């Protein structure tokens, strides 16, 4: 495999993981909870594309819509689902001042609930779905063939990250969210509404999940009720390695994980390849022990015991 192809592959995977990590990082920032359900929101967005049916063959539902309508609808669904999970599962827990451990379990439970519902409606058999068929083409780039979907993934991610930066730096809500991430109580003392800023974080994270679900399905074409799990794990690992409580850290952590994963896969000798994942997951423990604020976090990240 050629260096350019490898780079594109690595960046594409890194982009996906960066997006999941960003979603997890946003919620962790304002709630100090790792939302395992983020991966299942991605899965939900993907399944929204087809008609709910237990049959093996699922005819497209939202998948039938023209591109722009499709994108907007899926994003709305996943953002809405995120807000619903916040309102009905996590907010009541917050009201009771649930501790970090309870929140962790509950996010696990929410994810499991989403999986169970989809399993119930669609059965456990994987289904195939085709959207944005054009993107499966290959492009010639500097004499090398690369998949269009990978380029699109990278570009979309870059755009989204730019949009996030603008939001967080220039818009008052974004600035309030950064403040809340740094010192939630102080932000409240200054008048920032806790419920609003958390709901907003969930909405954005949900929207990110929707976009990622489209990119993912466009690339793989397969629906499986467990498809969110590896993504959530990647997002989780990326966030911890990059730096919990730091959005920059989470994004870089996800990016690093995806790129490292791809490169190791391509460059390691056959024999060592299976150890690649184990090594990367093991990095989490290493980071927690040696540099708990994360590898890429900024200066101001504190850790709550």
């Amino acid at each position: 495999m050629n260096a350019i192809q490898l780079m594109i592959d690595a960046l594409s995977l890194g982009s996906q993981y960066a997006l999941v990590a960003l979603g997890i990082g946003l919620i962790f920032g304002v709630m100090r909870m790792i939302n395992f359900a983020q991966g299942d929101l991605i899965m939900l967005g993907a399944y929204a594309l087809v008609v709910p049916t237990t049959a093996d063959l699922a005819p497209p539902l939202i998948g039938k819509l023209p591109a722009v309508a499709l994108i907007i609808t899926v994003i709305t669904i996943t953002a809405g689902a995120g807000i619903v999970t916040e309102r009905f599962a996590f907010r009541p827990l917050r009201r009771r001042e649930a501790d970090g451990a309870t929140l962790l379990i509950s996010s696990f439970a929410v994810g499991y609930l989403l999986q169970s519902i989809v399993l119930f409606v669609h059965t456990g058999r994987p289904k195939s779905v085709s959207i944005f068929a054009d993107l499966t083409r290959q492009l010639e780039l500097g004499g090398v063939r690369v998949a269009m979907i990978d380029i699109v993934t990278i570009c979309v991610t870059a755009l989204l990250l730019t949009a996030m930066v603008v939001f967080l730096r220039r818009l008052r809500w974004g600035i309030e969210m950064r403040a809340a991430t740094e010192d939630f109580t102080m932000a409240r003392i200054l008048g920032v509404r806790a419920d609003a800023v958390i709901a907003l974080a969930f909405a954005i994270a949900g929207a990110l999940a929707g976009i990622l679900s489209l990119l993912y399905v466009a690339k793989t074409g397969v629906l499986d009720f467990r498809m969110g799990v590896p993504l959530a794990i990647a997002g989780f690992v990326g966030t911890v390695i990059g730096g919990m409580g730091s959005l920059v850290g989470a994004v870089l952590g996800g990016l690093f994980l995806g790129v490292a994963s791809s490169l190791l896969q391509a460059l390691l000798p056959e024999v060592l390849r299976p150890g690649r994942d184990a090594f990367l997951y093991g990095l989490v423990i290493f980071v927690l022990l040696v540099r708990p604020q994360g590898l890429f976090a900024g200066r101001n990240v504190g850790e709550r015991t």
Partner: protein
Amino acid sequence: MKRFLEPRILPAGGLIPMLVLVCVIVHAAGNQLIEGSLTEALVYMVMVVGLSIFVSNSGIISFGHVSFALVGAYASAWQTCCPGLRGVFMPGLPQILLDTNVPVMPAALAAALLATAVAAVAGIAITRLNAVAASIALLSLLFVVKTIYENWTSVTAGQGSLAGLPLYVGLWTALAWATGAIIAAQLYMNSAHGLRLRAIREEYAAARAAGIVVWRERMIGLVVSAFVFAIGGILFGHYLGTLAVSIYWLDMTFLTLAMLVVGGMRSLTGAVTGTLAVSAVREFLRAFERGFTVSGNTIQIPQGSQEIVLALALLLILVFRPQGIVGDYELGVPPPR
């Protein structure tokens, strides 16, 4: 003072006779299905009690205990599975394992010890972390171990299943092991180590000031807990007769954690109660999923309802009664002033 110094036999002393009674009644009733479900529930009980040894005493949630079950189950399989065919499924095993057929009991104990060793090694890192970081690290441990076992095809049959484990887990075997687990939990709870771990949980700063070595107590708790949980995992494998890495993954993690949380994260009584309660509900729903006829009408709920109900139940408990069914209550132990 006297009450404090007396060796405590409760709650184990209350829970065990109760379990024996339940088993006798169910066996006498003669329904194979229900007996099977009770057996499975007792196997889960070993796991959940094992989990509670660590979680209840330390206050640290563990998402990674299933990795110990995984290690234990396969280690038991390496010693006892598919005699004559072992080399076919797991060619990578050392010759001595391929040739020897270890009797199931010592095999189980040896396998659990291997899992305990894994826990000890991981514990070197984990016990030095604060509570939330430790939970995260334990989850990562699960990922690491699962990935290793999934890819170590020569000794685990990789992502495929391994059939041919000796089926020795019947109702009374499961009951015996569950009793053993409860006694072990009780002994640990009564011991100085259990006391110290709970002290760390309640008043971290004061415990340290009193000279308690935090990482050591957490390590001891983790290791004992891992042993018992691993036994549960081994029993599960020998109850099913088949192993697959995917069995020891997120579903089992969720189920055992749910059983503990629903019953009550802080007590042994909670662990036992939660396992029975959740198992009963699952059995109930399973019956509805199978469907039955009442005066000519078939009542049936669709497949997959079980998982939804379980997830909802867990969420409801977390929101409305986070201390679980029994809360801080421990059978036979007067509540703290």
